[in-house]
């Protein structure tokens, strides 16, 4: 049964991929069929600029993934395993930055770090007399900083359940053997979180390789060209999905290489099992005076991840235009015009409602399907299930527009075309890798002895899945649901080709201002959007006592 369910999910994912791959061999410019040939691939492999671009892409993506996943892991460890003061606040602070869409972070940090007009360089000049720009948003470091911040939530949400389900006897054994806390942490705690860390790292790396907003907004002005711009140029300049797919194949190759290392690193999965048949309680470590430093670390992330960019956006949304002098004159020059503009937007409410309903449904379905597929790979004996490892991740190698072309071709001429269901399937395909990688990272941490005990007693797969695996995975399920819901509710790229005329999908409306480069209106829309989500998350946490994987 899990195999059948995984096969259905796998088929839904792989079909648009096969369609676009087929077109890469058969089509030239969109609208023209050229027969079976290798023209697109010959162009890709004859492109002399590919290697330097690819090198930039790898530096940018690996740097961001390392920064984001590393900080995320550290935050998860602080929240789950230490006696850092202000528990309630410490649990919430890493969650809020997830709510801020990456493009909002991009714009806020450009305004903060631009060499000549950036707020931070302006302040250094005004208050310390430093007139040489210290920060540069349009540099590789600037790009890694901003996209790295956007990678933290995945690292945090993937690692948190692992640290929360940690069998303390492993660490206690180390202590008994005379190991010091830091040594234990480095030698026992973090290595055991390896699979989940690698899962988050792989996802963040692939996100970085195909990410477009940061390279466009920050890389291009600094003359930093990344590989994915070739994919977008193929679509935006040549309208050639075949060529775009041929370029995407390089991303697929990189994904396969990364996955190979991941599968190799986790092939003895029982080594990483932190959840075994023995009963235990998660132990919080007393880190002494270091707890103040860990609190500071969480707070600094909260500042960089949301508070500072949020304040910048609030000010920008209320001043007539942005330059350093006008920014510093706030609030004497505050106006609310941009808020009126956004609230008057014709599809603000209807669009938000549509996307809310769809995002909740998609988050639930995708997370469940992801767990089933991970269960099939790691907990069944069916042959060839490792193939799902690849299928479940491959959509991430395709830029969303390319992938959604495949979906449009599949749905065209069927009653599904222009329906909400087609949009739902599109979002499912796009977010499945997140659900799947999250589940596989977590399932590796559950020792097989738990399942085996059930099998020995004659349990069927559904008993094992629903009574053992799913309850143990509850923390990571919560995190994945939260993450996919937040991502899906702001999705534009996949949704855009699948929405039908006359039916608004919320994010298209909200992020229209960002797409059009109207930063003041975009900031106002972003502030409203963030306030709604922050209030929702805080209410859920404090009023309804909901725990986001905590």
């Amino acid at each position, binding site marked *: 049964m899990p195999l059948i369910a995984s096969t259905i999910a796998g088929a839904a994912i792989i079909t648009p991929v096969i369609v676009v791959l087929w077109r890469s061999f058969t089509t030239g*410019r*969109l*609208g*023209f*069929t050229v027969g079976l040939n290798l023209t697109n691939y010959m162009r890709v492999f004859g492109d002399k600029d590919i290697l330097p671009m690819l090198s930039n892409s790898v530096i940018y993506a690996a740097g961001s993934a390392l920064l984001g996943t590393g900080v995320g892991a550290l935050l998860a460890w602080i929240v789950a395993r230490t006696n850092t003061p202000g528990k309630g606040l410490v649990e919430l602070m890493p969650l809020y930055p997830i709510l801020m869409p990456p493009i909002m972070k991009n714009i806020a940090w*450009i*305004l903060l770090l*631009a*060499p*000549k*007009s950036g707020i931070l360089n302006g302040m250094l000049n005004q208050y310390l007399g430093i007139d040489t720009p210290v920060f540069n948003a*349009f540099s590789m470091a600037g790009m890694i900083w901003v996209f790295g911040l956007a990678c933290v939530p995945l690292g945090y949400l993937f690692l948190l359940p692992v640290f929360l389900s940690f069998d303390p006897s492993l660490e206690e054994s180390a202590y008994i053997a005379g190991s010091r806390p830091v040594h234990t942490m480095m030698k026992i705690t973090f290595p055991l979180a390896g699979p989940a860390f690698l899962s988050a790292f792989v996802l963040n790396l692939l996100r970085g390789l195909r990410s477009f907003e940061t390279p*466009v*907004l920050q890389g*291009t*002005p*600094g*003359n930093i060209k990344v590989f994915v*711009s070739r994919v*977008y*140029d193929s*679509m*935006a*300049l*040549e*309208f050639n*999905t075949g060529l775009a797919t041929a370029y995407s194949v390089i991303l697929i190759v990189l994904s396969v290489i990364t996955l190979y290392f991941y599968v190799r690193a986790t092939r003895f999965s029982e080594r990483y099992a932190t959840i075994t048949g023995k009963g235990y309680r998660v132990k919080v470590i007393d880190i002494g005076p270091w707890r103040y430093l860990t609190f500071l670390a969480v707070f600094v992330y909260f500042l960089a991840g949301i508070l500072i960019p949020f304040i910048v956006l609030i000010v920008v949304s209320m001043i*007539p*235009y*942005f*330059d*350093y002098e006008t920014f510093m004159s706030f609030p004497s020059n505050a106006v609310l015009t941009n808020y009126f503009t956004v609230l*008057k*937007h*014709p*599809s603000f409410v209807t669009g938000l409602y549509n996307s809310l309903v769809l995002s909740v449904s998609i988050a639930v379905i995708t997370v469940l399907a992801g767990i089933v597929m991970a269960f099939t790979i790691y907990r069944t004996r069916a042959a060839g299930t490792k193939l799902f490892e690849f299928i479940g991740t491959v959509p991430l190698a395709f830029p969303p*527009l390319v992938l959604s*072309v495949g979906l*449009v*071709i599949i749905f*065209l*001429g069927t009653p599904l*075309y*222009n329906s909400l269901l087609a949009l739902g399937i599109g979002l499912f395909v796009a977010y499945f890798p997140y659900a799947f990688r999250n589940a596989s990272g977590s399932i590796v941490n559950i020792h097989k002895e738990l399942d085996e005990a059930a099998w020995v007693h004659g349990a069927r797969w559904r008993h094992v899945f629903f009574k053992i695996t799913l309850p143990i995975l509850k923390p990571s399920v919560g995190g994945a649901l939260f993450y996919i819901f937040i991502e899906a509710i702001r999705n534009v790229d996949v949704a*855009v*080709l699948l*929405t*039908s*005329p*006359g039916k*608004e999908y919320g994010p*298209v*409306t909200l992020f*229209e201002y960002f*797409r*059009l*480069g*109207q*930063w003041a209106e975009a900031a106002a829309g972003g502030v409203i959007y963030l306030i709604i989500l922050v209030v929702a998350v805080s209410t859920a946490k404090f009023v309804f006592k909901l725990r986001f994987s905590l």
Partner: protein
Amino acid sequence: MMSKSMKVTAIGLAIGLCFASVAGAAQKAGPGQGTKGITGAGATAQAAKAFERASAELYPKAKQEGNLVVYSVWDVEHLRIISDTFMKRYPGIKATYWQARNPEIVTRVLTELQGGQSSFDVVLSDNAPSVIRAAGGIMSYETAQKDVLLLHDPGIPTVSLQIQALAFNTRKMKPAEAPKNWEDVANPKYKGMIALDDPMRAGPLSSMLSALKTQWNDDGRFNKFLQGLKALKVPVHKSTSAMFRLLVSGEYNIAMPALLHDVMEEMHKGAPVSYVKTNPPVLFPRHAGIYVKSPHPNAAKLFAEWLISEQGQKALDSVGRESSRIDFKSKTSIESAFGKGAKTLPVTDKLFLEDPKKWLDTFVKPVWEG
């Protein structure tokens, strides 16, 4: 004192020169493309009559069709206002729209075309209609109001224009220090002050280059200009609007090019920006292309005609979109922004409009990336 006859001769000469310069550009344009120079009250009245005739003929048929589906790159709030005004005038037609960026529009339209879908009626955009036409996706339709259009294409109605201006930050430089024209931007003295739109994308700078190439008709001059720009080693942007915000913020002194409606809007807010008024603005057509498999072709034609009509142009102007008519007065019209009789640089190169990649690979890439 100038005699009356001399005055008449001088005015005539000035008008003649003006006409010659615009007509010159039109002659060099690709087949089917052209610009109009002069119009008067007669042309306005004729266009109004032509519109009423078209409206009277098309509306009963369009009413029977009942619907109109528009694919557009324009802002959702603009589309809502425009379609509401249209439906108020023609209550028998229900207009709906789908909004996306140009690559997404072209991708969707051509995929639907290949799939034989009769899914929409009009594509309202700048770059997209010409590209779709080249792939066989546009039904040829000539507007009845062609005589009042600044840029006329006999196969696709031009309903609005994208007007590009040379903008500068007034805190960073005085008007006298700003470049005198597009060509002057390549002057080495502006090194470190300028930001460019990416010339290798189908964006405003590449369309400006195509207009300059058409006007100059001199490959040596064109290549020298490109080499001059390249030698400046300036920051390049893929988003014209983002580049413009950075011009306002003081990151750059000069942005090449900026969109006139952005400049006007920021000037209205008191932002420290202005534009070179003596520099000929670049005009890029915004079309209403009728889909070859349109399920409601009469509604589509009526919509295109209405957009060009005075009421339609007022609706466009109310959301900040530039008029395509010579006789329409607004703060972003050529006459208001650049003065009476101002020269313009129309983008009319057929190859550029239909296959920008090929045009860029042929004329820009060898110099820019060579």
